[in-house]
């Protein structure tokens, strides 16, 4: 650019310079803001995971702690012996028990997630359609169970579902059944427990997306000739996809690794990876095997999530 007037040029240069320095400042601020949660994740997630991963490569031993060291120092010959056992992982594939447990966990989690979505969506829709105090009241009711201990609430379900529990007595009272039904210690009870416990995690993200949904879009769809059902599938459902995804992940991920609910409500043959993990650790005291199971579970969960995130990014762009 030719120099037209000196002041003009100087002025431009100045603004460029100040802009640049303020940009730098903003970056610094950003990094420091991000660093705190990053540090948190590193300290309480990544490092523990590395520890677990390391244990999974060891061999079970009768010792304290009950596994072999990865590094052995041979001082005389100045050699570091590195001992990595892949057998634990191989065993995961050899014994169909583990694969069955994984599949069964994923199945139970998927079915439960489907039902939480089925029950949670109308609830979230209903809450989002209300205004003012009614909406606040309903939201509070959704969150209220968190004020009681999770364990207590699962025990309460045992009271409901057991042979001489409230449900059976009610059904017998109205004459629908003669003999009490076995509900506790079945897969059915596990589904009920998971759906009940994780319902708020489905409702809340769904509510936030549905609440933001522009009502005029629904009206526009109806105006253009789509009835309520078509409008729901063509507009409401696709528009609430972010909430559905978030809710499903929030329910599915913890449900796969769930231990307490199948342990308390499920049958002894209800196979879930959380219970297998527990048994390896505390019954068999096989820490390396338990660690391998845990690492595998993480992989199974992380991979689909990463695919989902990538897909979402592409969708946005």
């Amino acid at each position, binding site marked *: 650019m030719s120099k037209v007037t000196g002041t003009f040029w100087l002025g431009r240069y100045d603004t460029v310079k100040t802009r640049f320095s303020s940009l730098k400042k903003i970056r610094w601020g950003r990094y420091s803001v991000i660093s705190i949660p990053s540090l948190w994740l590193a300290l309480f997630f990544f490092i523990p995971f590395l520890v677990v991963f390391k244990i999974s490569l060891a061999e079970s031993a009768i010792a304290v702690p009950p596994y072999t060291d990865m590094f052995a120092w041979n001082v005389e010959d100045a050699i570091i012996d590195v001992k990595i056992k892949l057998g634990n992982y191989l065993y995961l594939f050899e014994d169909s028990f583990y694969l069955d447990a994984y599949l069964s966990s994923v199945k139970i989690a998927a079915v439960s997630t489907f039902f939480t979505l089925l029950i949670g969506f109308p609830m979230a829709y209903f809450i989002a359609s209300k205004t003012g105090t009614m909406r606040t009241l309903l939201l509070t009711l959704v969150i209220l169970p968190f004020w009681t201990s999770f364990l207590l609430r699962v025990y309460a379900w045992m009271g409901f579902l057991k042979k001489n529990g409230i449900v059976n007595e009610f059904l017998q009272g109205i004459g629908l059944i003669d003999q009490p039904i076995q509900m506790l210690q079945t897969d059915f009870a596990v589904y009920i427990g998971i759906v009940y416990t994780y319902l708020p995690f489905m409702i809340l993200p769904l509510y936030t997306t549905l609440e933001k949904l522009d009502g005029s879009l629904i*009206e526009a769809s109806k*105006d*253009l000739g789509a009835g309520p059902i078509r409008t729901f599938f063509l507009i409401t459902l696709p528009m609430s996809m972010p909430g559905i995804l978030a809710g499903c992940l929030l329910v599915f991920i913890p449900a796969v690794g769930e231990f307490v609910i199948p342990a308390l409500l499920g049958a002894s043959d209800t196979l879930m990876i959380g219970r297998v993990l527990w048994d390896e650790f505390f019954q068999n005291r096989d820490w390396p095997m338990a660690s391998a199971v845990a690492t595998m579970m993480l992989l199974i969960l992380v991979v689909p999530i990463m695919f989902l995130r990538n897909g979402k990014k592409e969708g946005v762009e």
Partner: protein
Amino acid sequence: MTQETTMPLWKQDGAKPFIQIKNVTKKFGEFTAVDNVSLDIYENELFCLLGGSGSGKSTLLRILAGFEDLTSGQVLIDGVDMANIEPWNRPINMMFQSYALFPHMSVAKNIAFGLKRDNVPKKEIEQRVAEMLSMMQIEAFADRKPDQLSGGQRQRVALARSLIKRPKLLLLDEPLGALDKKLREETQFELVNIQDKLGVTFVVVTHDQEEAMTLATRIGVMGNGIITQVDEPRDVYEYPSSRFVAEFVGSINLFEGRIYEDEVEHVKIKSKEAGCNFFVNHGISCAPNQKVTVAVRPEKMKVTRRKPDQEYNCLHGQIIDIAYMGNLSIFRVKLKSGVIVRVTLPNLVRENRNPLTWDDFVYLAWDDDSSVVLTS
């Protein structure tokens, strides 16, 4: 607009109205949004509902679209009672104020939405969407998502989407509200052209009186849920039927007065505020000595330094404010009574040797037929 040899439908006796709104009332709890409104709109009209916020104009539009149930009354479209007809079964489409474009669909899919719902064959859909895209000059954006468009482009997509089903009636809620001034003016004329070409009846809701003036065949002025006047734009402006309409449409000067001579072909009015007597060259139906309001538009007044040769309709005051608007100047003149009068003068010459300026004393005068006498 083209010169028409035939009289417009609304002036013909016995013409069948296309939309009949009969004693329609809509209440939200205790609040009455639309209060016993009756209105006829004819085929091919571009009818504007003009009113401020909370006047009930949008509610009336939503009633036509079928989004609000009536508290009482009846709406007939093309002779059919709309009471039990759902929005998706009405021969009506609406262009929303926010445009309400579906963000997860491309422009072409947005436009095709209405046709797909009617199970129109795929080939025909493609052809009609292509036609509509070229008519609105948005072919280049067919594959874009709504959030990649400018406000003006979105407006065109919304219009295209609402016209694709060739509705008998198109409802437009503040169609130009989100556009900037330049684009708004261009689009105004385009809307009129499209309406003319397609022969669709338009009902437009707006709060912008300028928009209503340029678009409408007739204007219905609304306030507090009531339609106070229905007339052609010129009549609404020149012959407002009430104080409310006079003040809402354009700016106007109002003087309180009392009739002291009431003849068949003229009336004389005494006004303390104005400091002069008014002469109106037509009779009005009123009680003797009745209190009335005389209304004069700012551009109807002549401004002179010397006292003009007329006994009536002549004010005297001092200029306290001048606003130069380019094409015209607005003067605020303070009368002896303290009343401030607004006058506009066109800037006919570039340089005025002896311009009116602050603190000048001036006379404001107007013709016998320039004022309107309002009794309500």
